[in-house]
C-alpha cells in the first residue's frame, strides 16, 4: 500500500476525481471511462480494493448507505482527500512544466 508521499496510481487519481461529488461504485467506473475516453476501465476488484483503502485512509467517506433499502452505497471525497489530490496535481503540473522544456528547447 502506498503512503501519502508517494505518487497516486492512475486508478486512485481518477477515483478521487470521480468522488468530488457523491457517486456509487458503478458510477465511478463509468465516469473514469468517460474522462479517459475509454482508456482506463477499472475492474470491479481494483475498485473494491481502492475504495476500501481510501475509506481506511479517510480520503473518502460513505455518503449514503440506507440499510435494508435498495439504495446503492455512495462515496464522496473528504477534506484530507482533497489535500492529497491537490498535492498530486501540483506534482503533475511540475512534471508537465518541466517536460515542456524539452519541446521549447527543440523549437529554439
Amino acid at each position, binding site marked *: 500500500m502506498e503512503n501519502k508521499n508517494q505518487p497516486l496510481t492512475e486508478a486512485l487519481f481518477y477515483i478521487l476525481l470521480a468522488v468530488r461529488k457523491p457517486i456509487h461504485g458503478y458510477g465511478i467506473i463509468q465516469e473514469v471511462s468517460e474522462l479517459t475516453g475509454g482508456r482506463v476501465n477499472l475492474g470491479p476488484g481494483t475498485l473494491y*480494493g481502492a475504495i476500501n483503502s481510501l475509506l481506511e485512509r479517510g480520503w473518502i467517506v460513505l455518503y449514503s448507505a440506507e440499510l435494508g433499502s435498495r439504495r446503492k452505497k455512495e462515496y464522496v471525497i473528504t477534506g484530507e482527500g482533497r489535500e492529497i489530490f491537490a498535492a498530486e496535481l501540483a506534482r503533475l503540473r511540475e512534471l508537465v512544466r518541466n517536460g515542456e522544456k524539452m519541446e521549447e528547447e527543440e523549437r529554439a
Partner: protein
Amino acid sequence: MIRWKFTFDKDEEQDWLNEYAQRGWAMTSFFAGVVTFVPCRPGEYIYQIDLLPGKGLWADDYEGYVIFMNEMGVEVLQRWGRWVYLRKRAEEGPFEVYTDAASKIDLYRRIRALFLWALVVIGGCSVNAFSLWARFPEDMFARGLGGLYIVLLAVLLRAVWQCTRKMKSLEIDREGEGR
C-alpha cells in the same frame, strides 16, 4: 457434467474454466476440487477467480463484497473459504477483476500470504507424521503419511514461489504506471 480439478494456481484454473465456457460448458459450482458444469452458449460467460481479503481461512466482509460485485453486474457463483468464483455475461463487455499492476500485486500478495499460512499450519501438523516415520521407517502407513506431507509441502512451496515470480514481473509493469 462433473470434472475434477486440483491446482494451487488460480490463473491456470481460471483459464481452464474459460476454456470450458468457450466450448459451451458453464461452471456452476466448486466443492473440494469437484467442479460442476451445465451447458451454455459457447462463450456466454467470462469467469474470474478472486481471493477475498482476510486472515487464514476467514474472509473480511463477504456480504459487502457480494453486494458490491452484484452492483457491478458480476455474479458471485461460489465461495470456497476465501476463494470466490465470479462470472459475467460476455455480451456486457470485457471482464477482468483487477485491471492495474498495483491491484494485481496486492492480489498475489494475499494469495502468497494464504499459502505461507497453510505452509506453517501443515508444517506444524507434519512434525508428528515425520517423527512417526523416523521411529518406524519400515512401516507402510508412516511412510505413506510422511510422503503425503512432503508432496503437500512441496506443492505449497512451489505455489509461494509462483506468486513471488508473478509479483516481480508485475513490479516491472508498475514502473510504467508512474510509481
